[in-house]
């Protein structure tokens, strides 16, 4: 029998029927040689979580911290290839899928490099650290025909935080039109979302000696060179704009991506972002009170940080009704009314199947880039401390040269995207 690995390489020459359907064998029953393989880049806490994903087999790992690499390798029984330079992992012929679980400042470059090598990609959120990098990832995938999956999933599975429900029934309700239009979606503690403001950076970092196990230069990669301090790196990097965007960077795409889906905005972006926040430090990420996004049709997404916002705010507010935490709707008899409407269209939620039939995964480089754009619009507005207007077609800020220089940020040699 042709193995899946060979199949992928000769795709098209062999009939699909020669492959035993997965459901016949059942989960976990796929022979190892038929299993798709993956290599994981970045095997700190997040990357180690990727080992069991999707019933694919780990064959390679990469990290610029020797300790991380050896600790993670010990978690896998099989002998696997270990790399220091992620491009060696990408080149590795045994790797079908490249998993990217590094800090976000690497996501764009690594996705593009994996795309160049014709690999399929499983990338952590936030998809990219700048809007410009997101555009390049989208283009690279188009260029090479890869299948890309972003690792947040609330638009198609699991209870969606404080909503006490998966997103699907919410989508059905929004699509039904019962709530009216435009809608305002509020993401706050009161609607069940916590912004993890412990991801704040420190100012006045003392330069420290670089630990022997860490290749700091490679860890920084495209980011500006700044003297090493342990707080910049493992576990706390989210507190620095050079690598991520604090609580917004960490949770933003988890929370906002399903909203883009709910509102049907997967191919567009808001036209305005307003922030209410203490002034941000140029290096260390701080907290904020609110970030408000407005779309061209008047729909809004409002993020409230910390305890801000009103306790009784609906998650979705519309002219004809509201949806509150735990999926409480104030439209009389709404369940009955809603039942008459069709379920939302099915999404491609089986990544492995997507790889086989080359269909886009439910959350891919196109809609993923759009939801990451919202996170990054917020990050720019926070740093500049002003309201920004955005052109969702050109994907540029309007009349703000400085803000646009945050969209495309030059990279430190030898890295470009």
């Amino acid at each position, binding site marked *: 029998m042709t193995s899946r690995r060979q199949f992928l390489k*000769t*795709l*098209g020459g062999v*009939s*699909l029927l020669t492959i035993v359907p997965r459901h016949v064998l059942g989960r976990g029953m796929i022979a190892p040689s038929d299993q798709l393989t993956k290599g994981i880049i970045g095997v700190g806490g997040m990357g180690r979580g990727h080992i069991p994903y999707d019933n694919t087999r780990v064959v390679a790992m990469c990290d610029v911290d020797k300790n991380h690499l050896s600790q993670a390798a010990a978690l896998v029984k099989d002998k696997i290839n270990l790399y220091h330079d992620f*491009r060696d992992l*990408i*080149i590795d012929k045994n790797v079908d899928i490249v998993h990217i679980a590094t800090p976000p400042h690497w996501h764009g470059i690594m996705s593009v490099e994996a795309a*160049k*090598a*014709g690999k399929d990609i499983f990338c952590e959120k936030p998809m990219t650290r700048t809007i410009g990098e997101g555009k390049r990832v989208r283009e690279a995938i*188009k*260029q*090479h*025909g890869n299948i890309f999956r972003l690792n947040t999933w609330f638009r198609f599975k699991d209870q969606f935080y404080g909503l006490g429900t998966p997103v699907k029934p919410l989508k059905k309700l929004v699509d039904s039109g019962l709530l009216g239009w435009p809608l305002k979606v509020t993401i706050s503690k009161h609607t069940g979302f916590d912004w993890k403001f*412990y991801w704040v950076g420190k*100012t006045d970092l*003392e*330069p420290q000696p670089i630990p022997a196990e860490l290749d700091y230069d490679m860890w920084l990669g495209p980011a*500006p*060179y700044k*003297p090493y301090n342990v707080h910049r790196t493992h576990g706390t990097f989210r507190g620095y704009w050079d690598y991520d965007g604090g609580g917004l960077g960490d949770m933003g795409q988890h929370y906002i991506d399903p909203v883009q889906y709910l509102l049907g905005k997967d191919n567009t972006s808001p036209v305005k972002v307003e*922030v*209410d926040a*203490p*002034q*941000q*430090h*140029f290096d260390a990420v*701080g907290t904020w009170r609110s970030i408000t996004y407005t779309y061209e049709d008047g729909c809004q997404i409002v993020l409230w940080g910390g305890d801000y916002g009103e306790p009784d705010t609906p998650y979705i507010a519309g002219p004809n009704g509201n949806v509150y935490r735990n999926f409480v709707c104030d439209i009389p008899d709404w369940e*009955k009314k809603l*039942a*008459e*409407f*069709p*379920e939302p*269209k*099915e999404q491609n939620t089986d990544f492995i199947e997507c790889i086989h*039939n*080359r*269909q*886009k995964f439910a959350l891919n480089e196109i809609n993923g880039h759009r939801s990451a754009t919202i996170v990054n619009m917020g990050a720019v507005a926070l*740093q*500049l*401390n*002003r309201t920004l207007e955005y052109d969702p077609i050109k994907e540029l800020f309007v*009349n*703000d*040269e*400085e803000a646009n*220089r*945050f969209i495309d*940020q*030059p*990279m*430190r*040699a*030898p*890295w*470009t995207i």
Partner: protein
Amino acid sequence: MKHIKIILIGICFSLVAGLYAQMPNGRTNATIVADALAQLPADTQGKFNQTIADLVSTGEEGLTDLINRLHAPGKGSNETVEYAISGWTHYVAKDDAQRTATAAAFRKALSNPLDKDTKAYIIRQLRTIGGDEDVETLSGFLNDEYLSDPAAQALVSIGTTKANAALHSSLNSSASELIKLNIINALGQTGYSPAEPVILKMLNESVSEKMQQVAVTALGNLGTKESIRTLRNLAEKNDYAYQKNNAAESYINLLSKLNSAEPKTIKKEAERLIKTATKLNRQDLKIAATRILLKQPSANVSSILKNVIKDGNLAYLTGILYTYPFHNDSKSVDLIQKEIASNRSPQVQTALISWLGENPTTNSVSLLRNHVNSSDKMVQKAATIALAKIGGDDALIALADLLKSSDEESVTLAKNALLSFDGDIAYTLASVFNDSKTIGKKAVLDLIANRKMDAQYNLVYNQMFIDDKEVKASAANALKDVSTDKNLNDLFTLLEQSDSEYVPAIQQAINAALKSLPSDKQIELVTDMMNKSPNRHLYYSAMAGIGSTDAISQITNAYKNESGSNKDAAFDALSKFESFHVIYPMLDIVRSSSNNQEKEKFTDAIINVIRRSDETGTVKYLYLREVMQFAQNDRQKNTILRLLGNTGQYQAMLFAVPFMDIPELKESAAVTVMNIGISDPAFAGELTTAALKKAAETLSNPDADYQRQSINKFLSENPTEGGFVSLFNGKNLDGWKGLVANPIVRAKMSAKELAAAQVKADQQMAMDWKVEDGMIIFDGKGYDNLCTEKQYGDFEMLVDWKLYPGAEPDAGIYLRGTPQVQMWDTARVNVGAQVGSGGLYNNQVHMSKPLKLADQKVGEWNSFIIRMIGERVSVWLNGELVTDNVILENFWDRKQPIFPIEQIELQAHGSKVAYRDIYIKEIPRPEPFVLSKEEESEGFKILFDGTNLDEWTGNKVDYTVESGNIVLYPTTTGSGGNLYTKDQFDNFVFRFEFMLTPGANNGLGIRTPMEGDAAYVGMELQILDNDAPIYENLEEYQFHGSVYGVIPAKRGALKPLGEWNYQEVIADGDNIKITLNGTTILEGNIREASKNGTLDGRDHPGLLNKTGHIGFLGHGSPVKFRNIRIKEL
């Protein structure tokens, strides 16, 4: 506690409009910079704009001042200065004149000998706002190993021809490989083609891997046709495989870039690449090359597509299909439709069908319906999904037909497609039902249920009488979605006749159908059916659905009296009750049960009732704590502990503390302690600190480090001492005493009489009151109150209490020896108890009733928060505010106000009552300031005694009275504005105390009008933390105490931050004398000092005013003042 804060903030914000900030006019640039630094980071955008605008007004001088304050990393704090400089950069970016001026100042600064990281920081400012005029300065850094990277990046961001040319020209002269890398990398990002020859040359000469990577990538971006061959050769050398030098990608990138400029050359290259890639079986290369062909102006789109389809590779085909708008090309659309109809490979068909689903044409449905029966699963799936997307009657019929299939996968595909099918599908579903097999019928029933098609009730109902068990089960499940009150008779009959396996589904259907009737009708109907039925238990579920208290007791009785499946049915029904009241019978059962299994079952049920209820956190805490004693295992205990963490109840935190010693429970307990402990600053104090520290040691989950950070943050921002103390040790009555008469009578007794009476009273107390199981209990016999040994003035008290069933349950808590916060059985309507507990029962003038009924049932625990400040009392009962800041009248002598200080008493009122967890926090009461005898005799008058601002006018929003002080928190304006005396003063001795915060700046205006800048229209005596690092560059006439700009004061007499300073100002004619903490820091004559011009070289028109107001002049910093008095001379 929290509500109050929110309201206050609301008031402040609403006053923002209309108040103006103090303008920086008249301040020196150094002062403006220092003032701004003291206010950074700005908390709001408004304050940011105002503060940075002030800063920007200082121009180059200010910016240079700021830059000079930057230290090398690790050599001192840059934080505030970085906020100032970056803020400045962002603030000016949109104003071209200010932006260029700022950039010029940065350039100037860069010419000074600064530390390299400081320079990098400034260069990065230019990266975001720099322009052509900065190119020269930036290119100057391209020879520096450390700074060439930021400088090159800044030039990339500037992105003009001049910037690009500067990068280009510096490339030849660059000394090291690192610098070359930086510059080539930058040039690559600009796409500046004149740099091509030199990069090509360097590529040919270098063997370094990094140089290869950077140069090849750069050529891909900026190259011309001159680079094509080089890149192609490099790519070919490695069979176009991905490699670190990026050759294949750069080659393709270059072809794409040159596509429109060099169409013929590029076409040849692309076609050649397709051939090679086909040989190499590289779909990604084929896609890239084909896209280049498709983008050619003369491209024959359909013919290219035809080749792709002919190639037959799925990855190639999908890659191309979704990157070009073939739907705009009619020949391509025709081709796709033709290919779908033909017998291509399943992969090709799948790809094309999916595409058609996204881009349908008029005949798409007829084309696709042929494929819903395809033997290839992928094709079939693609066709069903495409049909569902396209919609319409024909698509619906095709999908419904598929339900008749005997192939399970086909039916599932059809069902999933129909679930999301837009429009009315009922009739079509019904029409295929009879012709469908079991799986199809099940699918139809599921679809009917999903859309709650009432009209299909009969179809569903009829299936309850067939033999096919699978279909029957689906029908039973669907009943709840299609039944209405019209069907109730049917359903009751069905319920009595059906096999037990269908009973739960039918019960659900009955519950759903009952919902459309009014609730009295529901009870009537169900009770009637139940009474008639030999199978009463069948109706328990309906009773539970109705949720009335009547229904609860019926089911409870059934549970108690019946056995076997009837008893089980009753339990199931009880656990499904939506009303919180069901907790009472459940508690009764669990309390009297001796069966551990039963206890476990009910404990779970009770936890669920609490979890899903909307009760306050306090009520949840009370019952979670109650049910903890019945928990049978660690799972239940952990659940209870975790839920306690969401209650926000102080007592819940302390309750959880001991569980941190039990290994199986310690993690849940620690998380709970943390959640509650850091949730409210009002909880801060010794007990909370100890609990939180223990939690920090205990926590060991993946987030523990962050949790510890949160704990440390809370402990560093809040008091770790004081706070609530326990009034009851849980073991005995230490700290309590018996009651001797009322406070007025006691006050008249001699010490000896009182002592003797106390001995007797204590003996009585020992008989009346006892301690059991951590509770203070009064059994209902005896008659005297239990009193605290200590007396209390202002305080906040927490106490849990419970009345026991019996005759006339009644008790109360005496505050300052006076009755009382009422506790009674709300069933006692004859005495008016239905209003609830927590009112000030004996009030006659002021409110005596609670605002709302918040009592728990007699026999269950309640919890009070009682706050008494001055003569006013607030009470929260079970988390609800029931007494809102009401004056407590003096019961013992209604003519006098309540005693300022007295004992707290637990009332004995002839019925059994228990108390536990009594905590109290004393609230310090500011004593009004009084003049000393000397000052009084000298004729001093008090302007502020700690209680009110009656003598003052101006910004009373930002200046407020807090704990006996005037406190300035600049919230409505950047500066905080000014607070003036209402009266005017000419010659005087003015004495006051002040406390500064780090970097604080304020001023004492004297002889000033209320408009304008007091430093000039009157006189300003500096109030300033002049030792703060941000004030390094002060002029001496700006030191604390100086007559601003006119007479300098001596530095060095200020107390350390956080301590009060005492200052005396004597203004007598032209003579000013200031004494600070006993040191004379200024003594001078303003006329003399200004006759040859002032020190600051500015006009001070108001300096010699005869009279005017005295005022505090805000400069944006929090400051406190107290004990203010004046003597006029």
